[in-house]
Each structure stands twice: as structure tokens, then as C-alpha cells.
């Protein structure tokens, strides 16, 4: 259990990297993270759908915020067009936190196909990503924010079940 990153540690690092606007659609893997965001008094916009979450975050970026959008990999499918034709087209970089359900082929059946295509899909649309673990989360968040600030590129931090504590 010592190797599990806590949601609080992960959240604190996002805050230390100046993330100041959260928006998204829940997944049980990031249930605790969403609770922490909500409890700290930061804005958390619980969106109706992942595509809307991305567009709201683009609006927040235009207004000067550093947005983070949270979602499950299946929801990423809902958001693909908005990511390509709004977020990437206008170069309005966003930090994504995306859970990778089905990553090792052992999740519930509805997650298995998405588990297989998630990383290839990121590669196809040109969205850089980092797999997050207790050992690498700080350096990967820093690398991600560097791409956001200096290359105007959105980046995804990928959370696998079992790598982030979920329950209180």
C-alpha cells in the first residue's frame, strides 16, 4: 500500500503547479480527488459531458485560468472532436487527468475495449501523455506543465486503477 499515491499528494502537486480551475465528469478512480477539489473551495465545474467540460475549460483558459479537466477514458471518446477542433486547433492548452479503465485487461467487461485503444488513440490525435505513479508523479506533472506553458500543447496525465487511493 505504501506505493499508492494519495489523491491529496497528487492534488497538492497540481496546485503547486498553479492549476486553478477544475472541470470534468467523474470516474470512481478519481472520486477522492474530485472530493478534495470540491472541499478546498476551488472551482470545480461538474459538467454534463466530457466535450462540454473541454469547451468550458477552453473558455476558462481564454479568461486567464490554468484549467485541468478530469474524465474517464470512455468519456475521452465523447470529447475527441472538441479536443481536436477547439482545444488543439486554437492551441489553448489544458491539463487532462484521464483514468485508464481496462488498462491491464482485468476491469469490468464494458471497459476492456477502451482499455486497449486508449493509448493508441492519444497517439493518433497527438495528445502527449504520462502514466502517473507514486514514483514519478512530481516530475511528470512538471514535464506536463512545461509542455503546456512552453509548447502550447495539452497533455494528459493517465491514472490507472490501483495507482491512486480512491476511498477515504
Amino acid at each position: 500500500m505504501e506505493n499508492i499515491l494519495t489523491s491529496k499528494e497528487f492534488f497538492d502537486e497540481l496546485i503547486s503547479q498553479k492549476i486553478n480551475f477544475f472541470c470534468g465528469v467523474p470516474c470512481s478512480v478519481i472520486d477522492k480527488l474530485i472530493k478534495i477539489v470540491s472541499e478546498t473551495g476551488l472551482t470545480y465545474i461538474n459538467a454534463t459531458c466530457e466535450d462540454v467540460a473541454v469547451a468550458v475549460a477552453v473558455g476558462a483558459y481564454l479568461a486567464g485560468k490554468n484549467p485541468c479537466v478530469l474524465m474517464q477514458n470512455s468519456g475521452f471518446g465523447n470529447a475527441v472532436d472538441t479536443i481536436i477542433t477547439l482545444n488543439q486547433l486554437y492551441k489553448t492548452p489544458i491539463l487532462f487527468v484521464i483514468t485508464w479503465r481496462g488498462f491491464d485487461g482485468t476491469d469490468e467487461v464494458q471497459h476492456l475495449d477502451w482499455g486497449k485503444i486508449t493509448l493508441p488513440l492519444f497517439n493518433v490525435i497527438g495528445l502527449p501523455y504520462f502514466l502517473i505513479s507514486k514514483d514519478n508523479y512530481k516530475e511528470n506533472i512538471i514535464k506536463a506543465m512545461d509542455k503546456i506553458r512552453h509548447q502550447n500543447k495539452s497533455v494528459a496525465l493517465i491514472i490507472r486503477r490501483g495507482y491512486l487511493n480512491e476511498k477515504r
Partner: protein
Amino acid sequence: MRRDEAIKNIYKAVDNKSVFIFANGKISREGYLKCDNKRNFYMLASMGKASSIGLGVALNKHDRTVIVFDGDGNILMNLDNLAMIGYFHPKNLIHVVLDNKSYATTGGQKTLSKKIELDKVAKSCGYNRIFNVKTNEEILTATKECCNSNGPYFILVKIDKEQIEGTKIIPYSPEEIKQRFIESLY
């Protein structure tokens, strides 16, 4: 009323610090042709998301009035935006839907709006005031009433199917559209 007249009338009625999100297609193109300004964000694609972008701007720029020029096809694609705006309730947002009951940019195919009362949907989602307008005078009166930061407001404008001549593709790159819009918000 024509689409460009509706846009120009609303443009005239708000203060010169207001910012505008134009939905994709003819709405952006006529907005560019008739009232181009760095305070305009032209959405080139991502259909359905004009009001989501407007919500994100409005929640983070309380001192600016944000006007979204949406279409019936656009809002019907993401009717959930009405719920988002009603729930998060940005007081500085004016959501204008230019309703010609058709997808004008792609050849005039009909939308569902003939049978869907969009003003009533907005009302039940919690917008503060709803206006349903048809004439130049009505649109000016409604817009002036929406400028006191007690929104969100919803203005449904019935427009003609008639298209104006001379619209063209927006000449700015997406990054230029973004950059000048951001600068206008400083």
C-alpha cells in the same frame, strides 16, 4: 429579421467592453463580415460548444458581459449547455439563439426547433430572464434589459432563412482569433 441585422442590433446595444462568442458557420462568418472586432471569438468547428466556451469565460471574467451568438442547430446539439448555464448561473452571460429552424451553413436542412420551445427549456433550466423577439425594436429593448449583470439571460430571435451575400471564410488563423480575444480581455 436577417441574421446579420440581429447580430448588429445586439452589438449596438451592449457596452464596448463586452465580448462575443460566435457559433460556427454562418453565424461566425456574418459576425466577421458585419462587426469584426478583437473581442469576437469565432468558433470554426466544435459545433454545439459556443455556449460552453461562453460559460467558461463568463465564470472567470465577472467584469465583462459575455454574449454568445448561438444557432438553433448548435444549441440542439448540446442542449445540456442550457442546464450547465442555468446551474452555474453566470450573471454576466447573455445567450442569444438565432433561430431559423435550419442548418443554414450546410444547405438549409431542417433542425428540430420547429417543435421544440427553446425559450421554455431555458426557462426551466433556470435562466433569470427569457426574451422571445422578432423585430429590431424588440431585440434592442431586450438586449438593453440584459446589460445589468443579473443574468443569465436567454434571447430567442426568430430570423429569416434568407442568406446575405458576400460571406467568406474567416481569414484569421485560429491562433490569431485566440490571441486577439485574450488581449481584449486584459
